[in-house]
């Protein structure tokens, strides 16, 4: 993958925090395989917090950096992402038209599949979610994603695959082992072709064993995990939660990186501060 083609863009505080390694490699002009074929797993540690701001940040950041992005949305519509991105200075509609972004509207397709299933109406062959609803099989979704990814990566540009939020599949009856297999297959495909990173988000469903074991398995498979948790001391209007980024000590790297910060999500940006050092507290 050619990193020199990627655009230089001003980075915000949270982008600095998440893409620390990547930005460092780019500044030193040394593309590193380890950095670019990451599997970033974002997860909520408890049900009192919301991690979608990380996905919004990463989506915009990858697009600004010149990545081609394949985004699978299972919880929100394209309109929602578009309006958030516009606030952050990226126009998803035009990027979608210029084929830099492939947006798979899971929410819409899932809804259609369920309606057509109950009404016995045949759906279009190309629907990614047809087999998902009929057989709980992720094969078709995987095959279609691979086709999109290969198309996006055909010009040698880096490709980022993002799935928001993967735990939604659990709720519609897909087994956790299939979700883990899907992520693993996507990751190994991206690594083999040296295309780029895979980013997924998972919710936390409290004491659901299936969800817990899925999150644990994905934490084992990922190279970078971002854990979002609410404050142990309870709700605070000036500090919304805590974010922990962890890059495990993998072979070839010599050190595990673990950093914890607290954050406040604003309308257009996210403020980060060291634990216990928010201006509201000091």
């Amino acid at each position, binding site marked *: 993958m050619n990193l020199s083609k990627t655009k230089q863009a001003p980075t915000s505080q949270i982008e600095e925090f998440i893409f620390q390694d990547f930005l460092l490699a780019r500044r030193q002009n040394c593309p590193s395989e380890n950095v670019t074929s990451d599997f970033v797993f974002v997860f909520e540690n408890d049900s009192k917090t919301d991690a979608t701001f990380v996905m919004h940040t990463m989506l915009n950041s990858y697009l600004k950096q010149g990545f081609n992005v394949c985004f699978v949305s299972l919880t929100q519509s394209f309109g929602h992402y578009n309006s958030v991105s516009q606030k952050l200075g990226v126009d998803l509609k035009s990027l979608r038209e210029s084929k830099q972004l492939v947006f798979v509207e899971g929410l819409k397709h899932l809804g259609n599949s369920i309606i057509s299933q109950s009404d016995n109406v045949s759906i279009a062959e190309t629907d990614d979610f047809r087999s998902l609803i009929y057989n709980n*099989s*992720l*094969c078709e979704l*995987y095959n279609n994603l*691979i086709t999109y990814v290969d198309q996006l990566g055909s010009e040698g540009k880096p490709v980022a695959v993002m799935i928001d939020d993967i735990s939604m599949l659990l709720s519609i009856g897909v*087994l956790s*082992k*299939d979700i*883990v*297999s*899907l992520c*693993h*297959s996507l990751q*190994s*495909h991206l*690594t*083999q072709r040296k295309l780029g990173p895979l980013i997924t988000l998972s919710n936390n469903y409290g004491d659901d064993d299936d969800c817990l*074991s899925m999150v*644990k*398995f994905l*934490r*084992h*498979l990922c190279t970078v995990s971002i854990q979002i948790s609410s404050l142990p001391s309870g709700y605070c209007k000036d500090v919304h939660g805590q974010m922990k980024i*962890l890059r*495990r*000590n*993998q*072979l*070839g790297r*010599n050190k*595990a990186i*673990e950093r914890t910060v607290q954050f406040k999500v604003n309308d257009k940006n996210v403020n980060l501060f060291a634990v216990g050092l928010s201006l509201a507290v000091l």
Partner: protein
Amino acid sequence: MLLALLKGSELSTIILLKDDVECIDVCNEHIIYNFLLNHSKRYDKTVFLCFEKPPDTYHKLLPSETKDRVVTIDATKYSHMWLDFHNHDNKLETGTNVRKLIEEQLPSGNGSFGLIIDSLSFHLLLRPPSFTCQFLHNLSTVSYKGYEIKQIVCGVHQDIFDSQILKQIEHTATSVLTFTPSPHNNSTSCALLHHKTSGKVIRKIEYFHINESLTISSIREENKLTTAIETENDQVDPASNLTFNLSLKESEKDAKNQLILPYTYDKNRKEAALNEPGGGKIFYQADEVDDLDEEDPDDDLNI
């Protein structure tokens, strides 16, 4: 013991490595790499079967002289087939197919070979645990193209599965190494359960760390048995802080032990009681007022 198992001075047929998500500094990957390095030095051939990470991640770090002794099989290439879990039997996962795959990749020859599987987690996730046990057992008992299998090393992520499932796999293994991060000295602790060929079972906890060149150095070890005794001694004695005396001095204890209580039957006292002469005879002397009848009371009966 960990180093002995690594170097091969301690024999073990199936070694199971267990790590969890909290092991951020040292995880199965590092230990697997060390086993791979040692296997490639020790055996004629080493087959490395990768289910989680592509084998190149490990292979590129090996010294060049041992590289050609390692045969890698990249099962991550087939991972998308795992999605179709209804048709598993036609796919790579079955024990026979892995055997076929090994036979395809292994050049014919003779000697010894070791097998390293980076993770059994996908096996356990997608198939019943008994399948994985059979899979391991089958692999450990056959020879391949003239090569005799000496050791199988496999990793598993222990926090994903129930203890019941893990126990089944542990019974199949001859050594089980459990890694957890240790609070002191930035080291990792390894709880070790090893069945020796003589039948003796060894339990130990070892602390080690891995340096930048990925070599393991053992810091210290302790026997589980001794730690158990220590914890017993650590328990607070309830009689220690009383205002009155409940404990005995040594001399008082001796005196107490020597005293035989009156109704305690030791051997001597029992024999004396049984062999005592006389006793038990009843003499009856009639009173004046007693009305003794000399006649036989049953005399009138005609029997």
